[in-house]
């Protein structure tokens, strides 16, 4: 067996993990599985692409990387815009269901409808043809032990690590982080403690959307950009969030890396055509053996 699957798996796992953090955050605060979350990944990638395409400069490769300084700027802009998109959709759709106390599952159906509409809108505007940030070719560098990775791939692993640490610090060390945890545990008591729950919900959408956009830009840089890129990640996202323990941020990133590694291993041993089934297999095993996930607490 070739150990290269470890590098491939960690890279795919980083993107899944970043997306899964958003799924787990939305779930912890709003208590429903958002089927539209994958679309934030695709929208993030296309929004960044739109910025890069609109500005005629700044994409001359820097150092060993395949892109110029405009990409990070475009990524930040895309993160903000995708966060805004998530807030907009909440305002248009989910907020009304919350107000009238609809069952969780109505929100899930609505998110399913929103997912289709968002994805098809991308397909309508950009067509289903794959596109790329850059056409630069990259040579994979040997890392020792027979492993190889491109400079872009290593950079993206680093960026993921920074983002995950930043989210962790946000949740544990800041006022808004405490408020998010408080709302997650008990929304009524949080209101009584003076927490503006609507503001917390907006923050969660914005954060989830921005992280998804980050995953989308990474996927666009390392793989390709297509309207289905987010939807195809949806099952791995859910599998990662549930595997890690729903509500747990470290669990989401850990679950993401594990799902990514399993996928890469399956590609090597079973065949690339079965990659998409890995998420389902993991999901089934987790629900069968440990429904609360690795880091989750059992229901009391």
């Amino acid at each position, binding site marked *: 067996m070739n150990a290269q699957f470890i590098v491939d798996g960690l890279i795919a796992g980083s993107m899944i993990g970043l997306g899964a953090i958003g799924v787990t955050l939305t779930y912890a605060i709003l208590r429903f599985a958002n089927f539209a979350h994958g679309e934030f990944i695709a929208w993030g990638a296309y929004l960044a692409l739109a910025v890069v395409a609109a500005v005629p400069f700044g994409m001359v490769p820097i150092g060993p990387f395949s892109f110029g300084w405009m990409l990070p700027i475009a990524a930040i802009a895309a993160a903000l815009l995708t966060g805004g998109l998530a807030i907009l959709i909440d305002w248009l759709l989910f907020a009304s269901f919350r107000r009238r106390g609809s069952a969780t599952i109505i929100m899930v159906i609505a998110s399913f409808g929103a997912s289709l509409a968002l994805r098809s809108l991308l397909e309508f505007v950009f067509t289903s043809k794959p596109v790329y940030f850059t056409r630069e070719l990259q040579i994979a560098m040997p890392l020792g032990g027979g492993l190889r990775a491109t400079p872009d791939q290593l950079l993206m692993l680093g960026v993921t690590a920074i983002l995950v640490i930043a989210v962790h610090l946000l949740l544990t060390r800041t*006022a808004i982080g*405490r*408020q998010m*945890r*408080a709302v*997650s*545990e*008990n929304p*009524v*008591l*949080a*209101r*009584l*403690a*003076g*927490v*503006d*729950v609507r503001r917390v919900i907006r923050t969660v959408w914005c954060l989830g959307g921005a992280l998804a956009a980050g995953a989308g830009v990474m996927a666009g840089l390392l793989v390709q950009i297509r309207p289905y890129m987010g939807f195809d990640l949806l099952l791995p996202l859910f599998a990662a969030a549930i595997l890690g323990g729903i509500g747990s941020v470290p669990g989401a990133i850990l679950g993401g890396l594990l799902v990514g590694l399993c996928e890469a291993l399956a590609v090597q041993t079973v065949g690339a055509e079965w990659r998409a089934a890995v998420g389902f297999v993991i999901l089934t095993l987790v629900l069968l053996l440990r429904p609360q996930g690795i880091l989750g607490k059992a229901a009391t």
Partner: protein
Amino acid sequence: MSVAEASPALAVEALVAGYEPDLPIVKGIDASIGQGDFVAILGPNGAGKSTFVKAIAGLVPIHAGAVTLAGRPITGLAAHLLVRAGLAFVPQTENIFASLTIDENLKLCAGVMPAGKRSERIAAMYDLFPDLAARPTTPAGALSGGQRQMLATARALLVEPTVIILDEPSAGLSPKLVGEVFETLARVNALGVTIVLVEQNVRAALGVARTAMVLADGRIVHRGPAKGLAEDPRLGEMFLGHHAAAGETA
């Protein structure tokens, strides 16, 4: 006495409230609670005590009537704004964040204070409750029942409220702890904070409260000094629903 102090800490006029629009549980309550008072709200099960205080705290929809806090109208204000206005509410159960540490619980509540005052208020709470100061990084979920109630009270008191409303703080506590909790409330009241207490434990509540209000079927059926009410034979009748026997009405 200044003009601000002259207005009651909490006043309720013709309050009608309930979860469903066509099913009022609180059926027209008028009440005025003076600054610094310690009021026990008593009454049989289903009298609407809990709904009454939850409506004041912004957790149950108000259908009609008005609520004022130290002369300021607060009817229908969202719960998170009521805290800022000076009304703190301690629910009966799940009144602390179990997944947050003691310190995080206090910091969270301090968020409504001006930035410069937060650490000072937290320190004041630790002075008042040395038990909590001993273990600030313990998750609140690991605390005993009495300590939880202490933390819940500290959380409410931290924001320097005009009025603290507590919904059955003695529920589920041992008699010894009930004594401790009520002793703490008496200390808080001695600091000048108005306290409104909903209680099933009539004797313990009348032991600390200054004023008593008895509710039955969503209305006030008696209002008067707490002292001596426990021995008053009319109290039993009020609990059994003989409204006509009520004395001085609010």
